[in-house]
């Protein structure tokens, strides 16, 4: 029996890059009965957080410029917290996968010196981690005193000809800075109060249809976030107010019981074992982190309070800039933008229609990640082959059930004859498919080559134009239009009757040196925003 395929009301989800948005737009235009498009909420969040981190790094760089200049550049110390977390993962990760790290030694140091301590696992920093800058902050905030003690212990060792590890020196310098601790504390607060709830709501949207929740509802969450951030901007001290920060999304805890359950799980039920305590003691570690963040007991943490507020103001300012920038994807989901896709302008029917759909692009990211894993595992495998193996696995086509609860994959649900038929088709078509794969690759490489040639031609054109310009200005150097010493310049400037003529004279003479001789250091902007500067 054949059905007419219905693709009206389909939701198209991509990340926020320009190419993906263009593909999405073209697809939506091609769907006759109307489709909906949406950006991945995880990507949106990571974009604001990433830019917030850059802003904080920039501010700290300005603040600590003198101190940073005094540090040996070989140690590569920077105020970027992502760089710090990557270095920390290399040095302290208990998996000890980094050859120059000391994770195994650190593990035994903790067991010996601090049995019973709560040691949070350092966040994985290998590969690309967009949310690393906030997620990685929690273990650093809780463990930094152990890290410093261990680094001190290691750096005091003096073995003949044994140079101190640059990685350890880098971490020691960075972690002994109060400003960096303030930054880590701020990022930890942002992680627990904004990132964790927003990530859960985005990731679980498709499971919340029974609670009248769908992808469009994320626009409502953005409105709430916007409102709360504006309140913090008015009163930056709120960043250290536990009640305010941890209840930013409380209205959704009341509306969505699973979200409330998750909150309970995080702070009451999710436990973690302490170091080397044979009694098997387990603690609700996030509750402890939360307590330490808002009501610190360590003197260093207490001393960071003013800096956290100052940095918090910068962070919130940047987050608001990101949310309200009309050129950025998030802006159109805010009700203040009054766009057709914002929460207040989407009709109830459309909201209901999209229940059960996902608000993130995790599926596509995961498929690409799985294909990448296959490529890494198999070495010189063709990309379509690697992708096919991973896709068939993800689609569970060949899956064989191992218990009554599971179902066999789609292939095994066919009759034996059909299974054999499909396999024979595969065997027969494989050589042609290989040819097609190679042709597609060739085609892509040709396009790439063509693009490079076009770019080269364009460069040549501009290079030729520059060459002609240079010849012209060199010829001018030989004429009486060029003033070759200061005295001549002064004489000519006195002689010329108007400012406009003096301006033209100076511009020409400077251009002779810049364009004729390529002295770019004397380059001068002659106009700004299309208007000449005089």
């Amino acid at each position: 029996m054949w059905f007419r395929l219905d693709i009206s009301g389909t939701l198209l989800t991509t990340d926020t890059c320009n190419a993906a948005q263009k593909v999405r737009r073209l697809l939506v235009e091609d769907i006759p009965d109307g489709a909906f498009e949406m950006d991945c909420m995880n990507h949106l969040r990571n974009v604001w957080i990433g830019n917030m981190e850059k802003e904080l790094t920039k501010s700290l760089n300005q603040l600590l410029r003198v101190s940073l200049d005094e540090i040996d550049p070989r140690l590569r110390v920077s105020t970027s917290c992502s760089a710090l977390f990557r270095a920390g993962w290399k040095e302290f990760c208990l998996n000890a996968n980094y050859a120059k790290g000391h994770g195994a030694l650190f593990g035994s140091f903790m067991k010996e010196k601090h049995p019973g301590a709560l040691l949070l696992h350092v966040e994985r920093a290998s590969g690309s981690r967009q949310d690393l800058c906030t997620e990685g902050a929690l273990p650093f905030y809780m463990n930094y005193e152990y890290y410093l003690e261990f680094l001190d212990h290691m750096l005091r060792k003096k073995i003949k000809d044994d140079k101190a590890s640059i990685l350890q020196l880098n971490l020691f310098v960075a972690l002994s800075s109060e400003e960096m601790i303030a930054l880590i504390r701020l990022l930890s607060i942002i992680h627990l109060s904004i990132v964790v709830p927003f990530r859960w709501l985005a990731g679980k949207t498709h499971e919340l249809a029974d609670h009248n929740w769908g992808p469009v509802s994320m626009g409502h969450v953005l409105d709430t976030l916007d409102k709360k951030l504006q309140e913090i901007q008015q009163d930056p001290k709120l960043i250290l107010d536990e009640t305010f920060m941890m209840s930013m999304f409380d209205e959704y805890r009341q509306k969505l019981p699973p979200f409330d359950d998750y909150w309970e799980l995080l702070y009451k039920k999710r436990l973690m074992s302490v170091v080397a305590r044979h009694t098997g003691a387990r603690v609700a570690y996030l509750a402890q982190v939360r307590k330490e963040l808002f009501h610190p007991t360590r003197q260093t943490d207490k001393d960071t309070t003013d800096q956290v507020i100052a940095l918090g103001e910068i962070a919130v300012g940047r987050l608001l800039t990101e949310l309200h920038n009309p050129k950025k994807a998030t802006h159109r989901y805010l009700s203040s933008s009054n766009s057709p896709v914002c929460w207040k302008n989407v009709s109830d029917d459309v909201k209901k229609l999209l229940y059960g759909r996902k608000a993130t692009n995790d599926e596509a990211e995961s498929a690409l990640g799985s294909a990448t894993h296959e490529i890494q595992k198999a070495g010189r495998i063709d990309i379509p082959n690697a992708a096919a193996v991973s896709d068939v696995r993800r689609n569970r086509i060949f899956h064989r059930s191992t218990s009554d609860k599971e179902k066999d994959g789609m292939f095994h649900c066919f009759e034996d004859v059909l299974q054999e038929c499909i396999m024979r088709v595969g065997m027969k078509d494989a050589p042609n498919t290989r040819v097609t794969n190679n042709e597609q690759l060739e085609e892509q490489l040709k396009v790439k080559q063509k693009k490079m040639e076009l770019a080269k031609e364009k460069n040549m054109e501009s290079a030729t134009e520059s060459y002609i310009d240079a010849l012209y200005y060199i010829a001018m150097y030989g004429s009486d239009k060029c003033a070759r010493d200061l005295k001549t310049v002064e004489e000519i400037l006195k002689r010329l009757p108007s400012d406009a003529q003096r301006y033209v004279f100076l511009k020409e003479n400077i251009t002779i040196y810049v364009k004729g001789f390529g002295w770019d250091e004397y380059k001068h902007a002659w106009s700004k925003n299309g208007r000449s500067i005089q």
Partner: protein
Amino acid sequence: MVKLEQEKRKEAQDQLIRMSKETVKLQNMIAKYEALLKDTTSDKAKIMKKEFDVGRGGSRRWPVWVVQFVCELLVCGTLPRTIRNNLVIMYRTMYDKETSIEVLSLSFIRECRTIVQVVGETVTAIKLGQAEKWDQLWTDATSRRQISFQTLIIGMLGDDDIVDPFVVSSRYLGYSTHY
């Protein structure tokens, strides 16, 4: 007296019927076990040997079950270089019998990935053809080994009203901005 004899005869007849039923049951059971025994010994054991390709002169190829087996192992994540030995180990363990002198070549096993690709696309086409509605589409692109490729995933709402994703393809990008 007569009544007593009649009752005894009836009892003997019942006994006989019961015994004959038991005998039939026993015979069925023996037949069943014999069949099972035959399955696991030689008669129905799959032959791991290349077979002649019908209508292709003298060319020979591996039977479909071997190719399917290789494809399933590849999808499970088994490395191609280990599949040949795995297959021989399993065959000998299950059938207690030697495989043929011919063994799968490594290049053939690697080429089976293309068969996986065709089978995957065929089954995906069947799945998408059966779907009444495509509820959500995801797409993304990336580049690996300086080559761009993109993925398209189509989700269909399941009985539990949660969207069930199905990867349609991950292929080379003909033209791309990911250079």
